[in-house]
């Protein structure tokens, strides 16, 4: 009895379906990789599928978090992939120019420059959207196209390899036996949660995304808010770029973060944030990103034939989305729900209502 009500409460929860999907995906792996959930210590750090999911998933999580805010303002940012490439390229260039690549100072300088570049990209997008009023998808498409070029310009089309322990830490290294990127992600998540929920930023963003004109009329400086969102998104992409390049100790202007924007948007939506703007859910986004990374890993581990990768991905995505859609559940499991629905009981008509109603002659 109370159990069923508990169950209903659980299923009502926003994160129920995303989490279910995630768990399901993880479990699928077990028959193919018996030791899937095992985690053991390999030369000084944790090692196992779950670990690598987190490790390889971190950049996506970061980008998706930034994307969440942009989408909440009713926008979208297609340029994150390019920004990833730019920041990675710039950082690696700087590091590789150092005499001693391991010098922490040089690496920090590289980070600073890369993030500065990412920030500029964010500001650029923000200005195009908020100041010039260009439609977000097209405004960011510009940087999506040109940004790749810039990244390749930086690397002059080559792959810049760095051999710097310090640099490889952020995206590939371990700390306290855990992937260092885990800490970075955690930091960013905490920051963004604080930024949006401890301050009023979250509310204002949701207002702007929910009804721009109304927001203007209550005096919200929606332009600033939007610009901030794009800048934040740019920064997240920048950090992701550092991670991706650091993970392989090399910058690949052309391929780094290729199509990551689509996965990020996917993650955001799976996480329960609507592309029309307004309400946003960072927690959901993180789950969404993990789902996608797990999906990727699953494809590799269960030996899906290469040519069916995409079909497999498509099917999983659509199933997850259908499961989340109340309309779908209503239509499919609707029949039972109907019957379980409240039986019509005689309603409590207020006492002072006339008991018998006069009928017109």
């Amino acid at each position, binding site marked *: 009895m109370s159990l069923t009500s508990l169950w209903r409460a659980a299923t009502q929860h926003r994160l129920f379906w995303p989490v279910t999907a995630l768990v399901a995906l993880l479990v699928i792996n077990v028959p193919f990789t018996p030791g899937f959930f095992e985690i053991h210590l390999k030369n000084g750090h944790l090692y196992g599928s779950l670990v690598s999911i987190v490790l390889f998933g971190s950049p996506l999580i970061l980008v998706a978090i930034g994307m969440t805010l942009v989408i909440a303002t009713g926008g979208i940012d297609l340029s994150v992939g390019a920004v990833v490439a730019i920041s990675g390229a710039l950082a690696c260039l700087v590091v590789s120019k150092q005499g001693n690549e391991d010098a922490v100072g040089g690496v920090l300088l590289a980070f600073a420059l890369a993030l500065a570049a990412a920030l500029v990209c964010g500001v650029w997008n923000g200005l195009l959207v908020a100041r010039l009023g260009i439609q977000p998808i097209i405004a960011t498409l510009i940087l999506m196209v040109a940004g790749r070029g810039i990244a390749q310009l930086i690397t002059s089309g080559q792959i810049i390899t760095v051999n710097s322990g310090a640099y490889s830490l952020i995206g590939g290294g371990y700390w306290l036996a855990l992937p260092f990127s885990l800490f970075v992600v955690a930091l960013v998540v905490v920051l963004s949660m604080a930024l949006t929920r401890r301050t*009023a930023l979250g*509310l204002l963003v949701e207002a702007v995304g929910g*009804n721009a004109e*109304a927001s203007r009329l*209550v005096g919200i400086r929606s332009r600033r808010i939007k610009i901030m969102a794009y800048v934040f998104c740019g920064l997240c992409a920048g950090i992701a770029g550092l991670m991706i390049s650091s993970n392989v100790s090399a910058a690949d202007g052309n391929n780094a973060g290729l199509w990551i924007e689509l996965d990020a948007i996917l993650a955001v939506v799976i996480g329960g944030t609507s592309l029309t703007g*307004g309400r946003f859910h960072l927690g959901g986004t993180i789950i969404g990103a993990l789902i996608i990374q797990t999906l990727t890993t699953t494809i590799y581990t269960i030996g899906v034939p290469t040519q069916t990768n995409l079909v497999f991905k498509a099917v999983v995505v659509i199933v997850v989305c259908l499961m989340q859609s109340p309309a779908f559940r209503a239509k499919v499991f609707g029949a039972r729900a109907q019957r379980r629905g409240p039986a019509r009981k*005689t309603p409590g008509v207020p006492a*002072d209502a006339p008991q018998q109603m006069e009928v017109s002659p």
Partner: protein
Amino acid sequence: MAEPRPVLEMTGIVKEFAGIRALSDVDFRLFPGEIHALLGENGAGKSTLIKVLTGVHPLDGGTVVLDGRPVRITSPLQAQQAGIRTVYQEVNLCQNLSVAENILIGREPVRAGRIRWKELRRQAAQLVTRFGLDLDVSAPVGSYPLAVQQLVAIIRAVGSGVAGDGGAGSGTRVLILDEPTSSLDRDEVEELFALMRRLREEGVAIVFVSHFLDQIYEVCDRMTVLRNGALVGEHLVADLGRVNLVKLMIGKDLDELEELSEHHGQSQAGETVVKAEGLSRAGAIAPFDLEVRTGEVLGLAGLLGSGRTELARLLFGADTSDSGRVYFEGQQAALREPNDAIGRGVAFLSENRRTEGLVPDLTVRENIILALQAARGWTRPVPASQRDELVAKYIAALDIRPADPEAKTGSLSGGNQQKVLLARWLLTRPKLLILDEPTRGIDVGAKAEIQKLVVSLSEEGVAVVYISAELEEVLRLSHTMGVLRDRRLVARMANGPDVTAGRVLEIIASGEHQ
């Protein structure tokens, strides 16, 4: 004579939203050739009943019988095909389409599948003029003021019935009007009533929702009263006096209305809050001077489209002015954005709550807190405790239902949404409060509350600009009156016993003020 068979009979109607009962076991019947008032407080369930009938929301229980045949209507389209035409409460038009299309879309005149645009415009213009309106039917409907849009929506609904074309809509059996007059002026209301009477002669059954009791008593034959989603009774209008009606609606006597008679004592002329000199905006309103002092209520009267909203929007910086200057408390202000004005203690309740007021996805609490929060900036959130206390206070003060700060504002009833917006501005403690149609869609009880609120605010020294399509309301509340005509401020005068509705209308008609 024997009672004719009802054209529509709804019995035991039940509707739930996420467990909340909006309608419980409501019966409703409608006879051909009658105008039937559907009455109740804000949130009583009127609109929901209508939406359930026309297939916007699925029924959770109960039966609908149309012309003696039980029917299951699952979409507005079906409702139309069954001869039920509806004007929903919030104006529902496609702002991007022309007036003509909004009136006739779905029934466009076609030859061999090809739309005949000339004919379309001709028919539309014909309907519009038949309604005594004079509009450019090829202009986008979004370019017209809300009031005009409401008329267009009405024309769309009744038009089909009148212009008996072969389309899916011909032969209207039932016409449903959910608060059609909430933003209309007398003349339009008159036109509407004339039309309704004409249709009644033709045997059309009309459901009429309104919070204006006089209008009810003017046109309706029969009424059904709801309270808290339950049926309270069905009566002949002739059988039930106002006082009893109100009593039925809100479940308690209402005498405050009388008590709050002709208030406009001497405005204890305080210092100037706002002063406009030659302020204007091309195509919207001609240059005007205006001054409002602390504790003064300035009422703006004028016909639909006369420029009241525009005037207000200029004072608030919602639109930028072409010429003129504004001074707040002495020093000049450049109003580029609303928050320039808000920073100086101005608040503006827009007449158009859906597009310019609500953030429907946000909760009541968030909507209420929004203006205050915006003023404080994103870095300084309103402390939770203080916030909840404020919100709770205003929910109680304005009697917002459901009194749940977590409720999604979009799901509130029209009147309650209006109250939320009012609360939003009140807790910014403005120096100048601009109210454009604040009582639109608000029920009798709440209306009285709001009017009293205005009075007490002015007593606390708040300067108020009060715009309402309801002249009496303006006359009753304001210390000074401004009269607009054709987007020009033609007269300003101190309110007094000598200033009567008749006199104001005279000025509006003649255009000058002796």
